[in-house]
């Protein structure tokens, strides 16, 4: 880390940084990024069953003086949170209940865990920054006209419980509780909201492109721009959001440059990974189907869960543009891995995964 760069940071290389969710898809890249920047005092918090070996391996081969501590525990335990937060100057909070379909599970693993960590932090005063990793899922697109820009000034869902998406609900409430603790305890925080994070380790196709729920791939994105961010670029944004001076209380969206449309992405995926049959569903039709599903769900008292509805459609499939201008201007971030290279690495990982399956 150069002296010039260091001057723009709120901490020095020997200050303790805690990374929760450190063994996860993004978390492991965050740790790698911090080590590459010369930070020498890291604490990685991971679940007991996580593969901490890959994190421990990161510190091997580096020059002496790197202190990388791995704490295994559960953020649902206040004691574990206290142990994790003790002495931390910057906390990059990536752990969350991603992939949980039930509301209580998503909530407990995102909101209760975050509250426990915030409670532990509130007891000591040495914290300089808490970075809460949120998601694009929190934004509502309800009142925006087509093709309008989605940026940090856009509103989040006011009734996330109605969207039929447990992850959205949990993330909205998680952001709220961070802001509440920020206000109550003067906790310096930053919220980072990545778009769809892709790369080796996450070989799925985002639902913004389409879904295969009904046995055939329904292409719903069409000409929509997909808010991709390559995992290394996202990790860089999270790290910088934890370090940069003068951004407390801010929210930053993370998307890369040169974003492809859904149709372009799908075509590239088929060319580079595997060909499969997909059916394009025009926006008007997908909106009508989501509306019908919503009405049926309501009429049938939940015989079909309201997983498809107009709020979901607006958040996932309405035509929208995205901006990373604030992140570039305030955090001095730039996507180091260009879209073409990111997609190349991603497609290669997809091919490897299919071959090894």
């Amino acid at each position, binding site marked *: 880390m150069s002296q010039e760069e260091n001057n723009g940071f709120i901490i020095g290389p020997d200050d303790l940084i805690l990374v929760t969710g450190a063994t996860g898809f993004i978390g492991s890249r965050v740790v790698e990024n911090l080590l590459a920047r010369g930070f020498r005092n890291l604490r990685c918090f991971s*679940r*007991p*069953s996580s593969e901490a070996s890959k994190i421990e391996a990161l510190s091997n081969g580096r020059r002496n003086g790197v202190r990388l501590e791995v704490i295994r525990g*559960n953020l649902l*335990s206040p004691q574990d949170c206290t142990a994790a937060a003790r002495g931390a100057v910057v906390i990059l909070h990536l752990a969350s209940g991603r*992939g*949980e*379909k*039930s*509301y*209580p*599970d998503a*909530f*407990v693993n995102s*909101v*209760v865990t975050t*509250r426990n960590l915030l409670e532990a932090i509130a007891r000591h005063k040495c914290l300089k920054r808490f970075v809460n990793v949120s998601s694009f899922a929190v934004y509502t697109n309800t009142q925006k006209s087509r093709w309008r820009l989605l940026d940090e000034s856009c509103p989040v869902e006011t009734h996330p*419980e109605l969207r039929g998406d447990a992850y959205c*609900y949990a993330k909205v*409430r998680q952001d709220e509780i961070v802001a509440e603790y920020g206000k109550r305890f003067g906790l310096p925080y930053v919220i980072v909201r990545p778009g769809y994070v892709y790369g080796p380790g996450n070989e799925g196709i985002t639902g913004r492109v389409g879904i295969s729920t009904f046995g055939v791939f329904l292409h719903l994105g069409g000409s929509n721009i997909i808010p991709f961010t390559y995992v290394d670029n996202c990790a860089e944004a999270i790290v910088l959001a934890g370090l940069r001076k003068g951004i407390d209380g801010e929210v930053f969206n993370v998307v890369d440059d040169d974003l492809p449309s859904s149709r372009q992405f799908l075509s590239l995926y088929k060319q580079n990974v595997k060909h499969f049959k997909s059916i394009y569903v025009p926006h008007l039709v997908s909106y009508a189907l989501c509306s019908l599903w919503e009405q049926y769900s309501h*009429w*049938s*008292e*939940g*015989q079909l869960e309201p997983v498809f509805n107009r709020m979901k459609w607006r958040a996932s499939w309405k035509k929208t543009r995205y901006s990373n201008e604030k992140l570039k201007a305030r955090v001095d971030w730039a996507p180091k891995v260009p879209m073409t290279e990111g997609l190349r690495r991603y497609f290669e990982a997809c091919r490897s995964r299919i071959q090894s399956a």
Partner: protein
Amino acid sequence: MLRVAIVGCGKIADSHASQIRRIPGCEIVGVCDKEPLMARQLYERFPVKRCFDDLNELLNEARPNVVHITTPPQSHFEIARCCLERGCHVYVEKPFTVDEDEARRLIALANEKSLKVTAGHDDQFRPAARRLRTLTQSGFLGNGPVHMESYYCYELAPSGYSGAVLRDKRHWVRRLPGKLLHNIISHGVSRIAEYLTSESPHIIAFGFVSPFLKGMGESEIIDELRVIISEEEHTTAYFTFSSQMRPSLHQFRIYGAKNGLILDQDQETLIKLRGVKLKSYLEPFVAPAIIAKQHLGNVLANARSFLARDFHMKSGMKYLIESFYRSILQNTPVPIPYREILLTARIMDAIFAQLDARQSRVESHDQIAVHAAQSN
């Protein structure tokens, strides 16, 4: 208007709240969880009047007639006892209590207070299960069952409930006497208990940690269980729990002296097995056609239920809750006889005691082997 409260706001509480709101003549007057955020999230998402993080406050201020207990099983007894003492009827999620002794004490207390309790064995009230009960009560099997087979399998997944149990060595499921089995098998065991007539059936249980789980470094969670249950030279039953066999069955097969029945919970089908074979070549040609016709009948019945908005994933729970509320309001018998709740608990106690004893034997055998190896 029946005033209902829910204590414990985890995943299963969502199902309770969803089904209660479909029942006319009742309202959820309060939800309670010792974690205030969890109580709050349930309150936010359902038509609930108030949320609490203290049971006494809930009982004092919301004044429910019925309390649904959806907390981890270790707390069922104390919470149910407290609710009964305060004059509330109680619906306790499965497993009813940690053991038979607690179950017996709760039922005695309910009787003493002239209140009612039930256990969350809602799978037994799904549409096909109700058709099975109607047929057995009409004498379709002959004079009671000769043999039963209950399959209650469970697919382990990296996310969700099982993932949490496997990841977290301090998870509450691991502190139950029967661990993972304890929290799941009561559905399958109670199906057998319903048709047993003796109070103390003979139990032989064999369980082990599957190679799949052993490969993950797991040594304490038994996920393969086989049980033989027998009444004195009368009725026998097999119970199977497996995380590894495919398909992952939820079936109940019951055979009488005259006929048999196969209930498939996943497919929501009930198939009648004729006791008398057809003559000669008619059996391989006509009998499968009769079975096929029954399957078609099941498809149509399911489609009719779906179109009538009565095919919810938790339709059995709604039926059980409605039946329980009716028994309260009309002072009629409870939907699940107390004898069945107690017998289910007794069978489970016997299974876990045998698994525990076997585990102790294996451990002491291993220790002897280690000592022998060291002395050599």
